[in-house]
């Protein structure tokens, strides 16, 4: 986990260069090999719509995994997403997507996802709450570096992380500091990704 993070912090410079190169490329250029969207995944969101997560390509995303019935850490994950938004100006905010992916698709149907979205007042223009099919959860968690185990009572043990994806779905930064107090370095990385042409 630690070495993984060190590698990631070394990446932004290289990614910037790649991002400049991408401007010259046509819109449907092949996905970079280090894009998480290389993993095929169809998610069903709070509106009951199913879409390939590749449709998020082109818009930087802050991604986290959660589940709606979680009472302790998961509300903090929503707080984290909100804190990222609050740290940004309106123009920056408009260019960022926040994607919360459920690790509990059996219970997190569109209705359950919508309840959280409504209760927490999450702007549907920027926030997607979505569930992968049950047999894809561990793969999606795998590319995002999230570990989890479902307990007998239906709760989950899981690691909590916010993962920043650039336009191409490459992981640019991650933080395990969740809640209203954000890792300032993570916010700086979000800004940088949004500024990249």
């Amino acid at each position: 986990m630690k070495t993984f993070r060190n590698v990631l912090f070394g990446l932004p410079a290289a990614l910037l260069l790649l991002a400049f190169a991408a401007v010259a490329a046509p819109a449907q250029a092949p996905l970079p090999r280090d894009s998480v969207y290389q993993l095929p995944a169809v998610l069903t969101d709070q509106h009951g719509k199913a879409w390939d997560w590749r449709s998020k390509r082109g818009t930087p995303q802050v991604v986290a995994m959660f589940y709606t019935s979680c009472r302790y850490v998961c509300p903090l994950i929503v707080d984290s997403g909100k804190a990222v938004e609050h740290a940004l100006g309106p123009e920056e905010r408009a260019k960022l997507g926040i994607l919360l992916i459920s690790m509990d698709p059996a219970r997190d149907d569109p209705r359950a996802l919508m309840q959280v979205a409504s209760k927490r007042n999450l702007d549907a223009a920027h926030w997607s709450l979505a569930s992968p099919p049950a047999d894809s959860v561990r793969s999606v968690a795998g590319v995002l570096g999230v570990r989890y185990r479902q307990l007998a009572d239906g709760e989950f043990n899981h690691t909590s992380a916010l993962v920043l994806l650039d336009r191409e779905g490459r992981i640019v930064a991650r933080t395990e500091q969740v809640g209203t107090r954000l890792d300032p370095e993570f916010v700086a990385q979000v800004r940088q990704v949004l500024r990249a042409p």
Partner: protein
Amino acid sequence: MRHIAALLLALPAAAALAAGGAAWVKLPGGAFRSALKYEDASELQIAPFELQKRPVTNAEFLAFVQANPQWRRDRVASVLAEPRYLSQWAGPTTLGDAAQPQQPVVQVSWFAASAYCEAQGARLPTWSEWEYAAAADETRRDARSDPAWRERILAWYSRPSNKALPRAGLQAPNAWGVQDMHGLVWEWTDDFSSLLVSGDNRMQGDADRLKFCGAGALSMDDRENYAVLMRVAMLSSLEARDTTANLGFRCARDVK
């Protein structure tokens, strides 16, 4: 006559290859006491399942890569397999001298191992299934309380790992009829990333950094069982794209 004997000897190997890998062994499952302490259950119920008799070999994995070129080491997405993926092979579709056909395939990521099993209409075993199948020795279905058996397994872990791997399927089958559960390679499990072992000092004095949601990390119920402890420590340290020089896999499937 000698020709016929040679032919008969060659047949099972050819049949196994044609069927897409090792023979399947059926395990009855049932109540099983893990060496791990789960906070939510003291005894596990394991459903009947089938497990491949031995780990997947280089030859078998090569056939998979040839049929599914997106898993060639020169084409694979780097989020799904790190740069060392299949690096022991001479080329993207060539085994070469350093990777014998009957040796277990290693340097495979969890994504690649899962894709291989899926292509066989199977899946990776769960950790519990693996632990249950690995609890047996040649005569007993659960030999874990025998100090001599533990010693034997530990002797393997203490051997240097830089020597060439033996071929798969050479060991005597255990009481279930499964081979090479110990003493050959480490093996991926489907739910490797559910093994949440607290990384000692990462958890200390840092209450704001909530590493785990829920009740917390796993611990050991049977502290004498170092073989399981080491497997768990190893699996819990891996990312799904990681590969290592002595980590392979075998497939499992539900009993229909």
